[in-house]
């Protein structure tokens, strides 16, 4: 209260927070880039068996060691980003897009439509997500489109809940009443009046939802129900290298670190983007 600017916070936590603010988005961007170009950037053919032992340790030749077939682990992780990030991104986009649309429609139309959609999706929420995923994958087989749809359906209800509650608050504002009184169509009210005022929460929700999807996809793959060989995402990489555990092979831990780095980085990036307004909210 006695200086012109709020004094910079000191101490190890503050330094961590400040560097985190720059490094975390970089990690997110790195994995996104790997999802698109990883296959070409990989030092070796991800599926090619190299001239090496099984479960080799880290070396100059194989930075992250080799897997149970003697394949280069770094290449496999970089190539696996395509599945982990790609499938999660598609599933999240699908879940958030339909959640936003349904939430908007429910708040703009209200009444019976709102009640029906809300109760139906509440019923979906009550099914445990992993069980639901297991059943769907068991029924339809574990292809990538089925995985994307399954993940989207599992996360749609939560997405809808959040977006509906944001949209209902916006829909109660006077400018929406003015638009209604003018006789505007429901679609116009949804897209032009309500949607622009909920972009912030929608994006924050997108990021958090993405993390959950990554974790669920990885656990499905770990259980053998996700991405199937010869394709491999990070969850499957952990699973297939489990026998390396007694040898202390890096092949087991590295894909897990990749998962952790992606989810933590996304989480902290969202925090720094959306948390800042409230922390430093001075008129």
């Amino acid at each position, binding site marked *: *209260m*006695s200086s*012109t*600017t*709020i004094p910079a916070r000191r101490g190890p936590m503050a330094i961590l927070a400040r560097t985190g603010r720059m490094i975390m988005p970089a990690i997110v961007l790195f994995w996104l880039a790997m999802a698109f170009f990883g296959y070409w950037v990989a030092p070796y053919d991800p599926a090619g068996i190299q001239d090496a032992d099984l479960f080799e340790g880290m070396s100059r030749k194989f930075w992250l060691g080799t897997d149970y077939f003697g394949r280069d682990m770094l290449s496999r992780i970089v190539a696996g980003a395509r599945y982990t990030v790609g499938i999660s991104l598609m599933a999240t986009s699908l879940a958030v897009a339909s959640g936003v649309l349904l939430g908007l429609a429910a708040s703009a139309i209200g009444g019976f439509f709102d009640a029906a959609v809300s109760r139906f999706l509440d019923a979906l929420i009550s099914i445990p997500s992993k069980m639901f995923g297991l059943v769907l994958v068991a029924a339809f087989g574990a292809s990538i489109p089925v995985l994307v749809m399954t993940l989207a359906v599992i996360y749609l209800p939560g997405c809808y809940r959040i977006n509906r509650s944001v949209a209902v608050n916006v829909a109660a*504002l*006077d*400018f929406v*009443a*003015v638009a*209604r*009184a*003018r*006789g*505007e169509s429901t679609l116009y009210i949804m897209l*032009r*009046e309500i949607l*622009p*005022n909920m972009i912030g929460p929608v994006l924050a929700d997108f990021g958090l939802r993405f993390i959950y999807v990554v974790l669920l996809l990885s656990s499905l793959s770990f259980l053998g129900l996700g991405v199937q060989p010869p394709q491999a995402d990070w969850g499957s990489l952990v699973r297939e290298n489990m026998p390396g555990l007694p040898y202390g092979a890096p092949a087991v831990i590295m894909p897990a670190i990749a998962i952790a780095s992606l989810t933590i980085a996304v989480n902290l990036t969202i925090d720094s983007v959306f948390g800042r307004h409230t922390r430093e*909210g*001075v*008129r």
Partner: protein
Amino acid sequence: MEPLIDIRDLRIRARTAEGQDIEIVKGVSFSVRRGEVMGLIGESGSGKTTIALATMGYARYGCRIAGGTIRIGDIAVTSLDEKGLQQLRGQKIAYIAQSAAASFNPSRPIMAQVIESALIHGLMGEAAAREKAISLFRAMAIPQPETIGNRYPHQVSGGQLQRLMAAMALITDPDVVIFDEPTTALDVTTQIEVLKAFKEAIRDRNTTGIYVTHDLAVIAQIADSITVLRHGEVQEIATTSQLISNPRHEYSQKLLAAAEPALRPSPVTDRQARPLLRVSGMSAGYGLTGKDGMPAVPVLRDIDLTIGRGRALGVIGESGCGKSTLARVIAGLTPASRGTVTLDGIDLAPGIAGRSREQLREIQLVFQMADTALNPKVTIDEIIGRPLTFFFGMKGAARDRRVRELLDLTRLPATVQHRFPGDLSGGQKQRVNFARALAAQPKLLLCDEVTSALDTVVAAAILDLMAELRRELGLTTMFISHDLKTIRAICDDIMVLYSGRVVETMPAAALETGRHHPYAGLLLGSVPALRTDWLESTEAASLQVQGVPPALSSGGCAFFPRCTLAEPGRCNTEVPPFRDYPGGIGAACFRLAAE
């Protein structure tokens, strides 16, 4: 005599969202003698609350006291540390906030909260504190003083809560009490009770106070002297009677003029003008509609009204009386469950879906809060231009030209056209609000509390604009407000709503003369007049039974529980019929009919 509060060259700085450091209180000095009350008056942003809070050594988040001294008695507040401030606050100096409802913890009984500061400071035992609280409740004329402390905040009315908060402040016998707009959120009929209680408590205890408000008439009742503030600077310090009778500073004169809004002459003086809007036998509310056509939660019952072409009808009533719902029903946002709404001889469907686009165009709504009435993510050009495209299919250059015409009509600079609502001031936003409604070229304009959220000087300018629009465009308007002075200034006819029923209709000129329904009389008598002895001389406080919350009753007159003239056995069993009286007054009251 040495002043008790002495503030010298107080400077407070704040950091804006852009990181700029600006001075919001610029060298303010004043002093208050023991037993006197200093009024701080000014528009929003004048720094009045900031100064009042600084007296307690407190600066809001992002603000800091940058210079000057504040002394209370022999304590230098500005040089106290956190611990010293804790000792000071609640014990030597107490604070009464604008919204008592937000200042009480809803999960604890009132008594525990009222005596809390006495217990924290260790001034008395719990039993003694309770006893003292009860005596304070009595002094504040709070009904059932012995038991009200056992209730929870939501179980008492707003006016009572405000007085309970004053009791909370006074429990430690503080030297100084800071009143921060304590009656602003209350209805006028409640405000008068609270003001009376405050004034008595101040006199009996010889309390020194700082009273912050934007309402000159209110402060005239309480304060001994007044400091007029603007943009963080003192404009004038004078005794109350001097300021009211002979303000020296130009800005004080402006404030004074705005406090008693001048009558705007009506362009249509013929009371029998051809009716444009006719509402008959209309009932509306929320929830499912029952077999008798009444909704589960009725808000309006059997409303009849007509507005002549080009005339302005003022609708007045306290919060919760259904006046905003009336506008929503006419606009079709809340469909009426019974009765008809006729515009220009054509019956309108109850809901928006059943009305044609042309019918929707003819009725336009202007809402109270310009902040929520304008979409913050859309430019002014799009806000005003959308109705032009929607109703008239205007595009490109033609639309652009018309938007600029409308900005000009509402006295807005053309530079705002491509800006966002957040860039505009409150008054400008309200003008955009009008421009949007006018873009549709409506026949009927429904204005819901359009000046309530504005400072008096800005509100006066909006009233001028409305009078001008009526004159130039021949607009028919319905003007909803809780403020009788505003309604009187702009309207030709007045309709008084109480608890969802029309209790009286009258020409605006009959307001000061003629006999009125007891509620209308109470309303009239409760509006503070701009003189220092109004609170003592008014009879309005004796016109109502104290402390019973109003409820919508179906059998009998809704005003019965609060009416001192009521005749038990009749007024509470039969609904009084609506009758005409001399002077163009129509009222629903048995007592008025009997005289």
